[in-house]
């Protein structure tokens, strides 16, 4: 696309814009010397370059300069963007562990390659980390000298007025006039410039040099430092994060101790003794489903968990948790992330003695809350008994939907529970941790259900059925309680990340929209008297520079009663 004439024009442009600072006038020798050498506003390199012999230090310096150059930063930025792509194409262990399992099952060959490359955890992989760490090192290498430079610039007066303003941006001049008081004219100019927020300095009594918009560079630096701040907050604070899950059935409680979590993923520096003691009791859970809109019957409209919280030394408090309003409790945040049904199931041995009686949370499988639950009874019956159950809150009439049960509404309108039974070693007594929500039937013998001559068990609320093989009986309670699954997080990075994010945003606004510019006003004696010249120099993007110079020129010339040359 970039044909040779246009790239020639580009380099000509780059050269000529530097002409303003290097060729035309010695504006100041500080001019962004500490910017990366290939920054648009930095002085152009002297060509041809005579390559000196580099020692080890020389090479280190060379590589450091390369790393902190604009070109490298640009390259690394685009590389980060590119490297982030694979993680969005392939399921990630952190956000979608089940997806990873499914993906690996479907693509066994591919998965080995991807696994070796760490694509299933792209964002913590070595190569991705290397890219963003290089980017941030490059960033730090760039902002440190620039910060020092900027602090110096803040204490430096505006630079000397260039000799020929006519070569600079926005140049205008007044018509020459006799009997103009130069000193007063320059004093006026200084006053006007100051009022417009410029720092000013007089040079030689016939010119004033002014600069404004230091906030631009301040904002720019704050933006980049705050990005480093976010990275550090996440990197350091991340070790203190812990996230735990807990399923709570209505009427039951959760206490914030390690043993009461169903699962917990602690950060590197997690201290189980540091858990803030509190407890919460789920007193009620309401789920409201759409009933009016025929396009959306059964769509959830609201979930509310009513809890009573108890922090030691304080009175119990009644509070609610909703999907978008987590409960902030004792330096943790409690989120309502899921809900379902927990049928109360009672199993008796043939003599009528209760061997199992508890609510079993069934995990929802679809939007109509068809749910799967597992019952394990290792003791009390003549054999170990395992059951896989399906719960349908609103079973479709078999005349409409066929004989296989289907749930057609998430509300509890026509609940049915079906169970398949297995016997064999449930693996609960070998000391290995077992997933309470899964039953692996491969080593078990099915004694009732689809795979056998004995039909599966079907129960409605309040109903009782015989267990196969004369093991005893099973009863479903009259009412089916709800459960909620809560996520309990402690994340001390949140505060810092938010603070730095706000700084990033403010820095971005000032760094992009505050124009940094120099303006000069100069009295020139010549034929026909004295005239004033005005010109400006953009430092960074400044599309309105000419307008700004013209505004100063108009105000100044009006105050002196002069007219601007058309």
């Amino acid at each position, binding site marked *: 696309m970039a*044909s040779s004439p246009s790239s020639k*024009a580009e380099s000509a442009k780059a050269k000529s814009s530097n002409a303003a600072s290097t060729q035309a006038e010695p504006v100041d020798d500080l001019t962004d010397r500490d910017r990366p050498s290939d920054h648009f506003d930095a002085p152009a390199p002297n060509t041809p370059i005579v390559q000196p012999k580099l020692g080890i230090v020389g090479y280190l310096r060379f590589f450091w300069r390369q790393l902190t150059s604009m070109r490298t930063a640009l390259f690394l930025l685009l590389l980060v963007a590119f490297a982030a792509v694979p993680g969005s194409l392939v399921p990630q262990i952190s956000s979608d562990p089940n997806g990873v399992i499914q993906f690996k099952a479907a693509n066994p060959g591919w998965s080995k390659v991807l696994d070796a490359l760490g694509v299933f955890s792209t964002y913590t992989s070595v190569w991705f980390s290397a890219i963003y760490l290089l980017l941030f090192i490059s960033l730090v290498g760039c902002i440190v000298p620039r910060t020092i430079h900027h602090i110096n610039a803040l204490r430096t007066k505006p630079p000397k007025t260039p000799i020929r303003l006519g070569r600079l941006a926005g140049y205008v001049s007044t018509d020459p006039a006799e009997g103009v008081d130069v000193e007063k004219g320059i004093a006026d100019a200084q006053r006007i410039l100051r009022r417009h927020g410029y720092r000013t300095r007089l040079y030689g009594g016939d010119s004033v040099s002014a600069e404004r918009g230091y906030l631009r560079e301040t904002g720019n630096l704050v933006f980049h430092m705050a990005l480093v701040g976010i990275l550090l907050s996440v990197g350091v604070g991340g070790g203190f994060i812990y996230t735990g899950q807990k399923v709570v059935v209505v009427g039951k409680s959760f206490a914030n101790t390690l043993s009461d979590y169903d699962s917990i993923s602690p950060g590197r520096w997690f201290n189980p003794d540091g858990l803030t003691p509190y407890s919460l009791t789920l007193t009620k859970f309401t789920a409201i489903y759409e009933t009016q809109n025929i*396009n959306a019957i059964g769509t959830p409209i609201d979930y509310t968990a009513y809890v009573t919280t108890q922090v030691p030394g304080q009175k119990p408090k009644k509070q609610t948790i909703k999907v*978008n309003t987590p409960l902030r409790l004792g330096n943790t945040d409690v*989120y309502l992330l899921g809900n379902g049904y927990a049928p109360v199931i009672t199993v008796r041995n043939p003599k009528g003695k209760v061997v199992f009686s508890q609510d079993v949370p069934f995990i929802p499988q679809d939007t109509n809350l068809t749910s799967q639950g597992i019952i394990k009874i290792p003791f009390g019956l003549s054999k170990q008994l395992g059951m896989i159950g399906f719960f349908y809150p609103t079973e479709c009439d078999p005349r409409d939907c066929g004989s296989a049960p289907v749930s057609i509404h998430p509300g509890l309108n026509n609940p049915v529970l079906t169970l398949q039974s297995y016997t064999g070693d449930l693996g609960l007594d070998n000391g290995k941790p077992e997933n309470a929500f899964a039953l692996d039937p491969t080593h078990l013998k099915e004694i009732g259900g689809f795979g056998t001559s004995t039909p599966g068990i079907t129960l409605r609320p309040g109903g009782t059925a015989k267990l196969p093989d004369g093991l005893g009986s099973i009863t479903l309670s009259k009412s089916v309680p709800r459960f909620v699954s809560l996520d309990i997080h402690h994340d001390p990075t949140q505060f810092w990340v938010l603070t730095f994010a706000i700084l990033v945003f403010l820095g971005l606004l000032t760094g992009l929209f505050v124009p940094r510019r120099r303006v000069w006003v100069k009295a020139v004696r010549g034929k026909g008297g004295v005239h004033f010249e005005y010109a400006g120099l953009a430092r960074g993007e400044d599309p309105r520079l000419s307008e700004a110079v013209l505004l100063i020129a108009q105000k100044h010339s009006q105050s002196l009663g002069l007219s601007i040359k058309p």
Partner: protein
Amino acid sequence: MTQADIVQYSLVAIYSAMTVYALAFIAFALDLAHRVSVARASAAAPAVPLASSLGAEAAMASGASTVTITRRSGGTAVLDRPDVDSEQPVKHSKAARLGLSFTVIAWILHVGGTVLRGVAAGRVPWANMFEFTLTATAIIIGVFIFMQFWQDLRFLGAYVTGFVLIFLGVATTDFYVDVVPLPPALQSYWLVIHVFVASLGTGFLGLGAGLAVVQLLQARRVGKGLPRLQGIPTPDRLETLSYRLTVLGFVFWTFTLMAGAIWAEHAWGRYWGWDTKEVWTLIVWVIYAGYIHARATRNWRGSRSATLAIIGFSTVLFNFTIVNLFFKGLHSYSGL
């Protein structure tokens, strides 16, 4: 009036808007053809602006006010004060004026239809892909129309109306969903803020990319020594305009990313989780950050940074279409 009636009125308004957009597109396309033929005619005429490096250098040295060198019949190069920078109003072809009028009419219908959709749903009209497309395209056109007060951008009319027409077409045929209540996860004031600012950002980034396309075309014409298209600014001027719009879009995008993180913390319990949509929003952000760096890197101004602006907007579109429809993630609110 029932909800179903209002939904119907809304759709009728959108279809009408599409019809008028189609007319606007035709008018703008004719206007572009007109500009090309004017440029051809002037190429035959004696005064030919040279795109020599000398010209470019002289132009830059004098700052914002550009100077062109015109070759007179005698063969001497004469420095002329320019007409070139397009700050002066250009006389518009009938087609361009007609195109803009059609666009305004279509936009009023479009906004009306979008508002009616919101009224029917009893909430903001951007809770699924269909509604989001209506709102985002209305914002693009709105920004385009109001930009005309600041800067003549009629030459972008064909691009803008064509783009919006395609998206409205896809929205009404492929993205359409009935009005349904908001799921609990979307019931948040962040829906109003986060999604609206995202579409605002999309509008600005889209126009910026459009200008970058014109910039590339114009730079190629200038590079070949062909005359510029009538009423279309110099590549430099186009680049500045594109930059200003893109930077605004970038600010909105930054806000979208941050607001999204805050909302994600409320709804999903973490502010960042490398969800596919989060990843792509970050990719877009990083590419535009690259664009802004490119503008500050020597030898990267001009066509290279323009290409980045176009790539950036392509990722915005990818994020909106492919990621929404085919990638698995938590942002599954397309309703499809």
